[in-house]
């Protein structure tokens, strides 16, 4: 089906199953260890060997030779496949860096070989015996230096790198109150719990790969291209995924190495990326330097807003689109945004949860706090005053729904915002206490998504789609959608995901997964309803599917009878019209944070957090809340600790394990509260939902920065907000 007009009333609006707080239908499998993650497939295709990946020891240059004689003689070793052995390979569509093949080294820990042995330990031991000779070349590793020669990129993920409305420079110059500050965000690592892993098995020229992928079809195409085989020869399975955050959007090298190795030894091979390889071998969220200028009248109306961002990537890469939200979030007649891209020889920068908006709001929402203070306004009032119900760059495009002000007001009331004092005015024991707020904003993205549903004679409705569940709850919301559409209880629905033999879905990313994949299931269910109605001679538009029955007028037929002994199938997908061009679809929220900062040491600890979200229909308040609190936790890490430390001499991320790259631990996370506004957006899809998974991260870190300022009077603009940046500005204690 093509979704071209705002949705009218439809069976989803009954909300008997959709929107209900239903626990994960795959929860029991997960807590009892029966959900198979990529590394946990044991011999599905015969006894497998283990491959251990070897990463480049240099950041840039060429491999001159690889001496694998000693490794080859090591006990248990079956085969060593090197990047020189497989030669230059097609890269596929989605990655910037090549994953494997050829002599060129583009970044540190790029895969250069896989050692295959009977056991994991044998493969790992032999891997250390490879002797690799490199010709190292100088590279550029500093964004600060790269900024000086950064260029305007061709595009930024399909968006214009620069936008301009009115006369920004003139309006800024003549504004009564102005702010002009620089902010920076560091490189960040996805650091999902489950490392990348794959098990590859060949049957003749056909490959089956069990892996951990957010986007089945993207991986399938790129893997086939890299191997030089037809896409149809590749079957990919990824039914359970231990987190991705964008780190599993694009084909990764574990899949490539497993495939080459399995081919080489004629046996299945399993490969996982060791944790210390992940930060440099895979992608990361690139660092940014951002300049924000805001000009306003004394009464707080923004007249000029400008946001520029610099980031770096390998040649051929993309900028981190940190200015995107500034094009849409606040009013102001004179505006400019610009992105500039430096060529850096660090590992590939690419999408991580809320790419663009997450680092963009880390800067913009501090700037708004600073500006409010300059104006002597409450930061909530300042934001509300500059609300806009239309795209401020194209005022003909209204937002389909926008309730940022409602989120701010409700949050302020629930959080006790009126008790916020002046900076540095509240102390409990040795802790300086402060509150901060920030707006949350993330666009709603639309990708095609298809599914197949089958109702069998026992009344079980089975859904098949290559959609993935990366811990988000896809299984559950898809089951809810199908149950609602056919008028069945959720325990009559079986959901099968993450298999390339199923219809191609939107996949999981960009917070588009829930809305798009359930819309695809909706479309398939409509087809099934039509088939059932046709079989009964009903007009499908008038038939009512409820309580396991289909009804028309005074006729009622149990669904099990209706489908007959062979069952009935419906298959379809959703495609999108131009509603997202004529209108702006976005999700909104407000983050409130209370922090304590130790007045002696400058250690910041979070005390309370609240998120209020306006994001269309909430399909399941339990799984949606999980998404938000997980994102808020990630925002705490992003604010306080997470930074891939760049060694600018050697060109790599130094702290490449979970001891050095500090994500929050339980003790860092206090009580978190989440409130969802009661919404349904008919412009977004027949489901009337939008995404929440990234909205929950957007703005959190800035709310923390603003809370630190309120606690201490120290304004920090460079993330992470660690004590070494604050100490010299804290009051004397001795």
């Amino acid at each position, binding site marked *: 089906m093509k979704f071209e007009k705002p949705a009218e009333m439809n069976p989803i609006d009954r909300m008997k199953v959709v929107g209900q707080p239903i626990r994960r239908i795959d929860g029991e499998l997960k807590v009892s260890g029966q959900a198979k993650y990529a590394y946990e497939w044991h011999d599905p295709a015969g006894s497998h060997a283990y491959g251990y990946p070897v990463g480049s020891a240099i950041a840039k240059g060429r491999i001159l030779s690889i001496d694998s004689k000693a490794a080859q003689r090591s006990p248990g070793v079956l085969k060593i496949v090197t990047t020189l052995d497989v030669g230059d390979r097609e890269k596929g569509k989605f990655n910037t860096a090549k994953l494997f093949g050829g002599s060129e080294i583009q970044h540190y820990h790029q895969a250069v070989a896989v050692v295959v042995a009977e056991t994991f330990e044998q493969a790992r031991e032999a891997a250390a015996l490879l002797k690799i000779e490199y010709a190292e070349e100088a590279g550029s590793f500093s964004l600060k230096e790269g900024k000086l020669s950064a260029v305007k990129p061709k595009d930024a993920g399909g968006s214009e790198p620069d936008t301009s409305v009115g006369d920004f420079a003139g309006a800024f110059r003549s504004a009564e109150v102005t702010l002009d500050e620089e902010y920076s965000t560091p490189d960040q690592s996805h650091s999902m719990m489950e490392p990348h892993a794959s098990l590859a098995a060949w049957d003749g020229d056909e490959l089956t790969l069990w892996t951990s992928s957010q986007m089945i079809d993207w991986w399938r195409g790129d893997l086939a291209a890299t191997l030089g085989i037809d896409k149809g020869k590749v079957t990919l399975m990824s039914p359970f995924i231990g987190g991705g955050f964008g780190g599993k959007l694009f084909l990764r090298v574990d899949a490539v190495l497993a495939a080459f190795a399995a081919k080489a030894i004629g046996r299945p091979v399993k490969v996982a990326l060791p944790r210390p390889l992940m930060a440099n071998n895979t992608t990361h969220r690139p660092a940014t330097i951002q300049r924000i200028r805001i000009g306003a009248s004394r009464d707080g109306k923004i007249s000029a807003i400008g946001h520029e961002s610099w980031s770096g990537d390998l040649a051929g890469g993309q900028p981190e689109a940190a200015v995107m939200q500034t094009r849409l979030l606040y009013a102001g007649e004179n505006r400019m945004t610009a992105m500039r891209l430096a060529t850096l020889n660090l590992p590939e920068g690419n999408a991580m949860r809320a790419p663009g908006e997450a680092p963009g709001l880390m800067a913009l929402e501090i700037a708004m706090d600073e500006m409010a203070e300059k104006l002597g306004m409450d930061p909530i009032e300042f934001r509300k005053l500059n609300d806009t119900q239309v795209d401020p760059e194209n005022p003909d495009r209204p937002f389909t729904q926008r309730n940022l002000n409602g989120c701010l007001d409700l949050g302020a009331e629930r959080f006790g915002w009126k008790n916020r004092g002046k900076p540095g005015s509240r102390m409990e024991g040795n802790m300086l206490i402060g509150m901060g707020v920030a707006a949350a904003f993330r666009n709603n993205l639309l990708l095609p998504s298809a599914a197949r549903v089958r109702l069998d004679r026992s009344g079980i409705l089975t859904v098949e789609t290559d959609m993935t569940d990366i811990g988000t709850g896809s299984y559950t919301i898809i089951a809810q959608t199908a149950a609602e559409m056919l008028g069945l209880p959720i325990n009559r629905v079986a959901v099968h995901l993450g298999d390339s033999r199923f219809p191609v879905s939107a996949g999981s990313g960009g917070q588009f997964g829930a809305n798009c994949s359930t819309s695809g299931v909706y479309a398939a269910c409509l087809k099934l309803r039509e088939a059932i109605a046709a079989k009964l001679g009903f007009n499908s538009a008038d038939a009512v599917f409820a309580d396991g029955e289909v009804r028309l007028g005074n006729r009622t037929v149990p669904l099990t009878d209706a489908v007959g002994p062979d069952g009935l199938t419906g298959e379809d997908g959703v495609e999108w019209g131009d509603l997202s061009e004529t209108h702006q679809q976005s999700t909104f929220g407000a983050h409130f944070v209370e922090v304590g900062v130790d007045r*002696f*040491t400058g250690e910041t600890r979070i005390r309370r957090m609240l998120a209020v979200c306006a994001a269309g229909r909430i399909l399941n308040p339990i799984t949606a809340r999980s998404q938000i609190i997980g994102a808020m936790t990630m925002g705490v890490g992003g604010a306080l600790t997470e930074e891939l430390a760049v060694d600018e001499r050697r060109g790599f991320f*130094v702290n490449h394990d979970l001891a050095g790259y500090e994500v929050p631990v339980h003790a860092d996370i206090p009580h978190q509260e989440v409130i969802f506004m009661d919404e349904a957006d008919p412009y977004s899809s027949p489901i009337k939902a939008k995404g929440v998974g990234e909205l929950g991260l957007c703005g959190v870190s800035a709310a923390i920065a603003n809370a630190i300022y309120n606690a201490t009077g120290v304004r920090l603009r460079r993330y992470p907000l660690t004590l070494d940046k604050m100490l010299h500005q804290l009051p004397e204690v001795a």
Partner: protein
Amino acid sequence: MKAFTYERATSVQQAVSMAASNPDARFIAGGTNLLDLMKLQIETPLHLIDINHVGLDKIEATDDGGLRIGAMVRNTALAADEHVRRDYSVLSRALVAGASGQLRNKATTAGNLLQRTRCPYFYDTNQPCNKRQPGSGCSAFGGFSRQHAVVGTSEACIATHPSDMAIAMRALDAKVETVKGDGTRRTIPIADFHRLPGDTPHIETNLERGEFITAVTLPAPIGGKQIYRKVRDRASYAFALVSIAAVVQPDGTGRFAIGGVAHKPWRMGEADAQLKAGAREAARAALADARPTEQNRYKLDLVERTLGAALAEAKG
């Protein structure tokens, strides 16, 4: 990990003689650090002597009113011991500030003293590191050094000692009891146990090859307010940026050792003598010879402020 052979010792004597007969052997107790290092091939012993069954798991009173802590006493047990909690609370507090409950259940008293630095360059076998590969150079010097040592460093190494427990033991003037391969016993004051890096950062303690730690002794209780203040970026499960183990008497005199700033638990007699004068004077005396990098210069200020917090707590 390199393939290794394994044998289990059931007595100290047996463990020591096993070590004497095999120069490639290492003792393994809790294994919470050694196994990680073996997986990364930073440590490559060809033979492991499991000492988990040699006894030495008691905490006993000594004749002079102190405590003898068996080498194999687990960190959890030591932290929870009633005598330790009553008379040496700085030690108990330091222990629970370190690692996680699971790790403390495995980690031993002797093993904790012997844990190795968490310098990220030490952990990356592609990078030069004098501690891992003598003579290869120090990557941290001029590199990512925010967490590194500021005092007692050398051109060859700016790594820190990561233990919390050892910082408290240094403040308490603990002694390390050992037995050598030939059966001779000696007692090493903890001040002399760990070494500064100098030109040989790969040699971290003054233990001889095959020398076996049997116990750590604490002198008779010294009273005072005992405080362990560990500063870190996240609330738990992180190594100290700076830590202070302090024992402060009612008259304001006392002693303190500093963690996170040197290749060994850092304590200076001159600094103890300044404690009564205040945190600034004492911290400056302790770090008079500091040579920080640009990235870790903040530790000088942080030590002073953290000591200030400890002294404030002692008063309160």
